[in-house]
């Protein structure tokens, strides 16, 4: 019976209504299990000394000023980039807009790297939509419900995404390994110009992930004797097992019924 169920579930969609029903049933448990974290967060915010808050406020103001300055330079560079692309008759880069969302649950199975977020089809979320945190690319949406969705993280062993080296544009595929701090590049030739410390960004190939978002940093390159390809390990940029507030990326032209916080 168990093997029959597994085969049915893996190769057909007949059992997906059961998954949907249980997902709705389990949602209150996700909410309940998050209470200790929320209480801790609330406690940290409300018991912090006034002087610390003032110090942090001053630091954030300073950081904001620096970032605004950098942003001005970025806008100038973006405009220049657009002009150059137009001169080359190249496709115009799509501008991305984002929607803030919060993690309301994580997969209890350590082998399955998924998170549940508090935005669903009511907010215009769709299957395949990329999600980010403040540090980099986190994953993509795999199931959408009315008011919540499930996202598969880039470190899940069933996930792969096209990437490129920021320094020189060398392309590859980054695969998850079921470890939150490790990804591997597939089919990298020993002659490829990839070095330790190289920053990997999404290449945009395949059309699923937008181009240019940080994916990770190359931490080690090893070649085993007799192997045709080198083993390249990448440390993901995103804080996959820590981030609570995430961004859902909408590219121009994609549906959005709500449009909140764009």
């Amino acid at each position, binding site marked *: 019976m*168990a093997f029959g169920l597994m085969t049915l579930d893996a190769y057909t969609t007949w059992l997906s209504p059961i998954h949907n029903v*249980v997902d709705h049933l389990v949602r209150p448990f996700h909410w309940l299990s998050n209470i200790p974290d929320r209480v801790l967060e609330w406690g940290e915010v409300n018991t912090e000394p006034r002087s610390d808050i003032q110090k942090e406020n001053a630091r954030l103001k300073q950081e904001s000023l620096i970032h605004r300055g950098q942003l001005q330079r970025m806008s100038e560079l973006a405009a220049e980039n657009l002009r150059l692309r137009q001169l080359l008759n190249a496709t115009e880069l799509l501008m991305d807009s984002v929607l803030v969302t919060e993690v309301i649950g994580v997969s209890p199975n350590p082998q399955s790297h*998924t998170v549940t977020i508090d935005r669903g089809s009511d907010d215009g979320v769709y299957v395949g939509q990329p999600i980010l945190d403040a540090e980099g690319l986190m994953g993509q949406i795999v199931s959408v419900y009315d008011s919540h969705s*499930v996202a598969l993280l880039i470190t899940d062993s069933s996930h792969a995404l096209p990437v490129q080296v920021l320094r020189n544009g060398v392309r590859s595929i980054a695969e998850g390994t*079921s*470890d939150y701090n490790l990804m591997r590049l597939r089919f990298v030739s020993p002659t490829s110009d990839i070095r330790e410390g190289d920053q990997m960004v999404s290449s945009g190939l395949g059309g699923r992930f937008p181009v240019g978002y940080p994916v990770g940093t190359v931490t080690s390159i090893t070649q085993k004797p007799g192997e045709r390809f080198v083993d390249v390990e990448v440390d993901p940029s995103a804080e996959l097992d820590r981030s609570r507030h995430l961004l859902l990326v909408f590219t121009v032209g994609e549906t959005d019924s709500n449009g909140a916080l764009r």
Partner: protein
Amino acid sequence: MNPVNYIIPVIFSLMVAVFLQLMPSTGSWLLWKPNFLLLMVIAWILYIPNQYGIGFASVVGLFADALFRTPLGHYVLVFALCGAIAYLLSRWLTYFSMFHRAFLVFVLVIFGELVGAALFSIWDIPKNLSHLHILGFTSAITWVLVDRFVARIQLHHR
């Protein structure tokens, strides 16, 4: 004399297990976190084998499949096998000390993880088994609390 019906305490204890299972954890804790649902199933089978057996383990396994988002049937098999072993040994284990019960749980959890890894390998999903002994150890320690919890509920409900 009619047997005591334990449906409500069992559902309550399973809800507590789901709550603990879903509680977010980070880093290595994720790999060491015991399978609370499996521990609770083993506990009820050991305490009331005449009412809760392999069928009960399978039903909870089906729920675990939906909860863990694994293909339906995966945890049905793992829970049913672990439940069957617990059921077969339940009469002897009544006379065993807490240490021996905890050791059995250590073995059962490792067995369950190995069965799970074998099933994952069918779908070509790699499973890291390097943490297995630590998971068994944390499960055995947690078992002491689960055992006391179920014993207290049973005593209170009788």
